[in-house]
């Protein structure tokens, strides 16, 4: 069932954070508080980009203790399909927009005696919200934040003020590197690890956690895959008895929605599993981009996550 609850909001501010990142503030039209949320939650922003409706997930960075507005920071991606470009170029103060209710796929384990956080670049945003929550409950945490250079290190000065010595910043251009092996081998028992950043950083942290014997249940990551652009293809929806075209800059899920077919979704970033769809016939290659499917499901071409994955070949039939 895909009838996700949505909120009508107004853009109350657009702030340039640095040369790549803008921050967007959303309020309710009547100024009343937005729904409470938990640190690590994201919202899906609906964008009416010409004839296309794009829905893209962004982590909430504002304090869960203050929901007079929601804030997200968006890094411009010049190579993407256009979601971040739309936000950077088209969205202005005062514009009405629609967003989904907050949903959390990157929740803190509230039992942990210590939270160890690794952020890379724009991956800092969910930690900002979590830190506000941890400060309120006197939680024990430590944040290691790496950015390309000082200019692109968003929110470093705010964080220094907020959490002082619990912040450790690393700049690539100064050859500063997070010493994962040292950190992962010197934590108190029961610590939980959280990582959000570029895919190679997440992979590296998970690999090092495994090497140091960390239990899987104590390692948490969030990475929203992006639906990459690609060659257009034809898709058959067997249950709806429709043939549809998936455009170059369109995801399968967006094409399914544009055809008026109701399809479930939650994160739209290949992470939550909500849009998992059975593949009935596949004459060609599925280009899986998600973090959800198991390896055997991927190689057998029986399942696909239409929010991020694509197809190359002659014929693809989905049970939708």
């Amino acid at each position, binding site marked *: 069932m895909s*009838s996700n*609850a949505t909120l009508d909001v107004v853009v109350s501010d657009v702030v340039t954070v640095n040369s790549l990142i803008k921050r967007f503030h959303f309020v309710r039209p009547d100024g009343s508080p937005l729904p*409470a949320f*938990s640190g690590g939650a994201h919202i899906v922003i609906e964008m009416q980009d010409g004839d296309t409706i794009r829905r893209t997930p962004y982590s909430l960075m504002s304090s869960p203790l203050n929901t007079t507005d929601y804030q997200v920071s968006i890094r411009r991606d010049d190579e993407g399909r256009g979601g971040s470009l739309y936000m950077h170029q088209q969205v202005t103060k005062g514009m009405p927009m629609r967003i*989904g*209710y907050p949903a*959390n796929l990157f*929740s803190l384990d509230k039992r942990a005696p210590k939270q160890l956080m690794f952020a890379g670049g724009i991956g800092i945003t969910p930690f900002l919200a979590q830190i506000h929550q941890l400060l309120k409950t006197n939680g024990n945490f430590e944040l290691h934040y790496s950015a390309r250079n000082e200019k692109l290190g968003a929110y470093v000065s705010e964080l220094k003020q907020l959490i002082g010595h619990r912040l450790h910043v690393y700049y690539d251009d100064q050859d500063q590197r997070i010493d994962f092996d040292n950190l992962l081998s010197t934590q108190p028992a029961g610590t939980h690890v959280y990582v959000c950043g570029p895919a190679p950083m997440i992979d590296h942290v998970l690999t090092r956690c495994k090497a140091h014997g960390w239990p899987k249940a104590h390692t948490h990551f969030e990475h929203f895959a992006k639906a990459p652009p690609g060659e257009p293809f034809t898709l058959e929806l067997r249950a709806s008895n429709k043939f549809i075209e998936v455009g170059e800059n369109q995801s399968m899920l967006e094409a399914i929605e544009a055809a008026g077919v109701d399809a479930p979704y939650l994160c739209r970033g290949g992470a939550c*599993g909500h849009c998992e769809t059975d593949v009935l016939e596949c004459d060609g290659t599925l280009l899986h981009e998600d973090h959800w499917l198991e390896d055997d499901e991927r190689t057998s071409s029986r399942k696909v996550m239409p929010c991020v994955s694509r197809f190359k070949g002659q014929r693809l039939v989905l049970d939708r």
Partner: protein
Amino acid sequence: MATSAKDLPFKQETYRNDFTFKNSPETVLRAPFPFDKDSYMYAVNMELHRDGRPGTAFEAPIDVDEHYVAEMQDRALVLDEDPLRYQSLPHMSLAGWDTLELLMTCKAETYPQWFSLTRNGDNWHWINRPMGIDQHFVFGDESTLPYGPLEYITRQAQGDFCVLDERDDNLWMDAGMITTQADWSLDFDIGMNFFEWHAPVPLAHEKGIFIRALKYLRTIQQGNPARRLNWTMTVNPRLDTSPENFHIWGPENTHITPENVADKLYLRIELQSFWRLPRSNALLFPIRCYFLSMRDLSTVPKWATRMHRVLQTLPPEIASYKGLDNYRQIAIDWLAQHDDGSPTTEGPFPD
């Protein structure tokens, strides 16, 4: 306050000893009858909890009915005897505040004549007129309430409440207020995960029901609650059929006779709903119990007919698990007078 409790339509009645509990005819008609066809099998029978069908128990997101005050008095008695019916592990405090907020706002919005909530930042003022409660407190500060937030508000809300923490791709029974249960124990299940606390259920594991149900529950979002119905049968309108008190109610299972079955045997319906809690990301799982005696059922011809057919065709494993073996045939024999063999209409609602 302007309205005194005795002006309100709440019954003085008991769920134990003399069992004076009784449904008014209107309350019978609004019950969430659990069978949408003439047979029953386990299924992932989830649907969105937001249709608000007038004149039914689904009309309000959190239903309050004529039994409210009596049910809360019964809960207080259970807690006096056995405080472990309420438990909350230390990491569930935030989920308790989430629950308090959800129940207070739902009730104040749906029933402004009975409940009111005034918020000024974190300074909240809660009035519960049926129970004579007028409470100022600071949201988030446990020292300003007579109980922890979860216990405080669930002493004022009908039905049981499980609070499930979500982690490790699973749900964990880490807090709850359980006094109106169909033979399960929070003290036994506390800290268990979804598969562990469902382990005793027959047939459903083999059908993959719980794997699918967990997958569904984990995707429940804020603003989009879901629900399902479950059922069993109970001798006497006894809310507290707990394992802890089996020695009290267990023997009553053999007390049903053809003469007393109409008024002594009850269909026990559970309206289960599922809510994503905003600050804690936990899931709130209220289990609200509705009783219909066999005589209550007979006032709705479609329901009596269908109950007859469901009991006749129920798989024996399910009948045993639900504890119906001692009286199932007696109930079938009594209900037979309401089943002339003609087809019933689709769906659960009365014709």
